[in-house]
């Protein structure tokens, strides 16, 4: 098989960057496996419990960048108890002991302690990039350690983490010698920051391209920062509250106009909507606009802003934009590929301001749309069928009707036909989230048509086991299946246990699977960890196999049962 010397192959492999492709390359033959593993620099681990750090280190000695995901997706919605797991410390510890020259660490849904951050900051001389998404467990003290010790830090990107904010001195911990920052995102921090330190930091970071501020950064500081960093490509504004007649506002206008490179705008955590005109000059170049944390911006002011954004490719917005506002998006943003509409008032089911009309308008106007997250008041089959016709390119389609078992309000039918149209039309669909009133029929459609589907989220749907069976049988590329509150029981679960080894994970909560069923899976498939999560201690007192299981999470693994599970997690 080896017609070329190793160095040549290695050079060829350098061009292969996608994880999937590299994984495939490593399977070709032993020598390719060897060459690939020594040349591999970036590794992605979708479930931190599927492999151990030791084995990772052994296989990829040249590792520079590691991406780890911890908790299951439903942990985002409080369905996974607090200390379920996903601790990064053992990984950092193992990597620190080894000779791995880690440069980048990207974590999602993991528990990150200050100790881990400190250890991280001290163990890897060339550490460059830390990206934490939806993580928790650390404070600004941990950030201070990163700032102080990582001399060549380029990227510190904190997205939607729960950080215990000890107020602000961490920014001052960046040494004067630190001039390498390219990206700094601390928008999720809730506390005060040292504004002077921030200004000085930005001043000495000529490569800074991405800066996302938190709520505590006032307008005059923003203006100063922009004056010092007109090269910014990505800006997250913290507080945007000011008097339109003030000197500060005029200065800001000038500063913004200098920033001709800004392509991505977010934040507006506090906003005075009558001052948005200062932003207009940069709107024409924006490709990403995230106003999903700006409930103060709505109505005409919002629409006027959108009308300036002709090049927008990604838009994250709150539903206060309304159907009418989505109509403006449809007319203006012809390049739109990704739309996310979040609810501004999620628990008031009667109040979502967008309905199926807005979605239809967008689908008609923005034919390049391929990724959708849409929280709405209601949806009709007719609308979904129209959307499917207008936009056959969906890769991600996540629809959340706030009342989760709501039928089509016009016909009172389930939404089976609508979602069926989506999966039939969008042949490249990889991710799908369903809601509304749904029967087994929609799953039949999914099994039949959604050939590329990798991730499926189901809630309050289906009538019987058949629903789950259609999906498991039909979706050959399925990797993640998460189900809550559906009537799927043991016969669906046990129909094809081998399937789960081809998937990353399966989550089932408030379904009909029993303890006996779960035990059966665990017995038949030793390469799966089958976890029963039960905080109510029912399992302790009642070991009846017929007992229904509240939450089950199973995933394939090469390293058997994990040792860090809390008491209420029972690994079968």
């Amino acid at each position, binding site marked *: 098989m080896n017609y070329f010397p190793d160095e040549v192959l290695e050079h060829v492999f350098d061009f292969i960057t996608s994880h999937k492709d590299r994984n495939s390359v490593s399977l070709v033959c032993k020598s390719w496996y060897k060459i690939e593993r020594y040349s591999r620099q970036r590794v992605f681990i979708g479930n931190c419990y599927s492999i151990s750090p030791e084995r990772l280190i052994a296989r990829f000695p040249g590792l520079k960048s590691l991406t780890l995901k911890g908790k299951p997706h*439903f942990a*985002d*919605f*409080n369905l996974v108890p607090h200390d379920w797991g996903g601790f990064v410390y053992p990984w950092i510890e193992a990597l620190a002991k080894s000779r791995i020259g880690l440069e980048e660490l990207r974590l999602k849904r993991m528990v990150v302690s200050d100790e881990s951050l400190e250890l991280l900051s001290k163990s890897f001389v060339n550490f460059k990039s830390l990206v934490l998404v*939806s993580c928790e467990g650390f404070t600004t003290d941990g950030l201070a350690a990163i700032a102080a010790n990582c001399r060549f830090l380029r990227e510190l990107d904190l997205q939607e*983490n*729960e950080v215990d904010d000890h107020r602000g001195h961490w920014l001052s911990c960046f040494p004067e010698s630190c001039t390498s920052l390219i990206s700094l995102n601390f928008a*999720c921090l*809730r506390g005060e920051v040292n504004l002077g330190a921030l200004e000085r930091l930005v001043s000495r970071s000529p490569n800074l391209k991405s800066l996302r501020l938190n709520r505590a950064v006032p307008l005059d500081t923003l203006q100063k920062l922009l004056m010092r960093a007109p090269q910014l490509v990505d800006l997250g504004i913290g507080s945007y509250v000011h008097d339109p007649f003030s000197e500060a506002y005029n200065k800001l206008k000038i500063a913004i106009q200098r920033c001709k490179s800004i392509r991505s705008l977010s934040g507006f*955590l506090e906003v*005075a*909507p009558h001052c948005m005109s200062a932003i207009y000059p940069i709107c024409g170049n924006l490709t990403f606009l995230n106003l999903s*944390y*700006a*409930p*103060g911006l*709505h109505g005409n002011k919002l629409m006027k802003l959108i009308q300036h954004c002709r090049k927008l490719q990604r838009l994250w917005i*709150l539903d*206060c934009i309304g159907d009418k506002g989505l109509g403006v998006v449809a007319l203006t943003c012809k390049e739109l590929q990704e739309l996310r509409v979040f*609810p*501004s*008032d*999620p*628990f008031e*089911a*009667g*109040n979502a301001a967008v309905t199926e009309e807005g979605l239809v308008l967008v689908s008609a106007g923005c034919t390049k749309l391929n990724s959708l997250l849409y*929280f709405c008041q209601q949806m009709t089959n007719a609308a979904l069928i129209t959307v499917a016709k207008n936009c056959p390119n969906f890769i991600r389609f996540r629809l*959340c009707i706030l*009342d*989760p*078992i*709501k*039928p089509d309000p016009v016909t*009172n*039918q*389930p939404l089976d036909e609508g979602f069926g149209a989506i999966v039939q039309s969008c042949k490249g669909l990889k991710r799908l989230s369903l809601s509304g*009133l749904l*029967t*087994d*029929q929609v799953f*039949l459609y999914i099994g039949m048509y959604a050939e590329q589907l990798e991730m499926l*989220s189901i*809630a309050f749907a*289906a*009538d*019987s*086991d*058949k629903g789950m069976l259609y999906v498991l049988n039909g979706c050959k590329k399925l990797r993640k299946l998460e189900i*809550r*509150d559906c*009537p799927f029981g043991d016969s669906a679960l046990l129909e094809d246990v081998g399937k789960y080894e081809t998937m990353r994970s399966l989550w089932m909560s*408030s379904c*009909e699977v029993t303890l006996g069923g779960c035990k059966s899976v665990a017995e038949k498939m030793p390469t799966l960890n089958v976890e029963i999560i039960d*905080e*109510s201690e*029912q399992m302790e007192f009642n070991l009846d196999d017929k*007992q*229904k299981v*509240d939450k089950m999470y199973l995933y394939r693994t090469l390293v058997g049962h994990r040792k860090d599970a809390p008491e209420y997690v029972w690994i079968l």
Partner: protein
Amino acid sequence: MSPPLLGVEEEGQSRVSSPSVECISHNGLGIRERNYLGLSDFCSVDSSGVPDDNGNNLNLKATELRLGLPGSQSPERETEHCFLNSGKLDEKTLFPLLPSKDGICSSFQKSAVTGNKRGFSEVKGTIYTEKKWMGHGAVPDSQSLQPVSHGKYSVAQASVKKDGPANVVQEQPCTSNGTKVNRTDISNNSSAPTAKAQVVGWPPIRSFRTKTLTTSSKNNDEVDGKPGPGTLFVKVSMDGAPYLRKVDLRMYSTYQELSSALEKMFSCFTLGQCGAHGTPGKEILSESKLKDLLHGSEYVLTYEDKDGDWMLVGDVPWEMFIETCRRLKIMKSADAIGLAPKAMDKSKKDC
């Protein structure tokens, strides 16, 4: 057999006829099971070889069971499904009767009555109010709460809104007798939607986002002086109560609703007051006297407005009220006389 049939028509969905037509056309098996509840559909796209006999038997059983459930009425759900989902009944027939943990409907029943879906409204209520109910077995399987909410679009809206604490009381009997709860619930819902019950993890929004948006809304309200979307929690104190409560003013649209909610919230204090706080001269208060407390002479409801003044609740239009209200206080009438200086002193003392 007639009550369910009437039930179908009452729901306003005249579907009884149409599904059977559909069934006839799709029914390759040539057997037509007539069922008042529209369960007659044996048309099946992927007939997985269920013998007709069994199907028929189970179907009949289903019918019997349906009748057994007092007042269960969800036939339009069945008819919907027949209309769309030709394979549906097949699934139903396959689905054996399973004894349910809490002795209510079997899963089959579930599918017969409500398509096997746990009534969302109940799920919401139960999960919100009692964590234990999250335990799967304990959640009342889909009872007739759900079908009614399906049948009527507008009712579905109403049924989404639930009275939190009262729900507990209602949901428990649901395990034994769904319909009673169902009817009471519906009437309850239509009268006055109060505190919202929420299902854990629904809608699927990251908790970080929810928290941030709540803070944002509040801040924006203060900044703009304009009520934006989001919640508007204000503290509610009551003279003599050991701790304060918070209410979300956006959950109500009239003073009446707010008043009822506050009554319920503070009932425990007033009832307990005779013992707990040793307030002299207080009689043992009964439930019936409770309403009088807030409406009548015992207490008055006051609020502190943006300017820091204590005002009597009820003078201004509701919209204006929620814009200006910063906190609420349930004062004893005696103290509220001459509301301005004396009341302010009292409130300052209590703070």
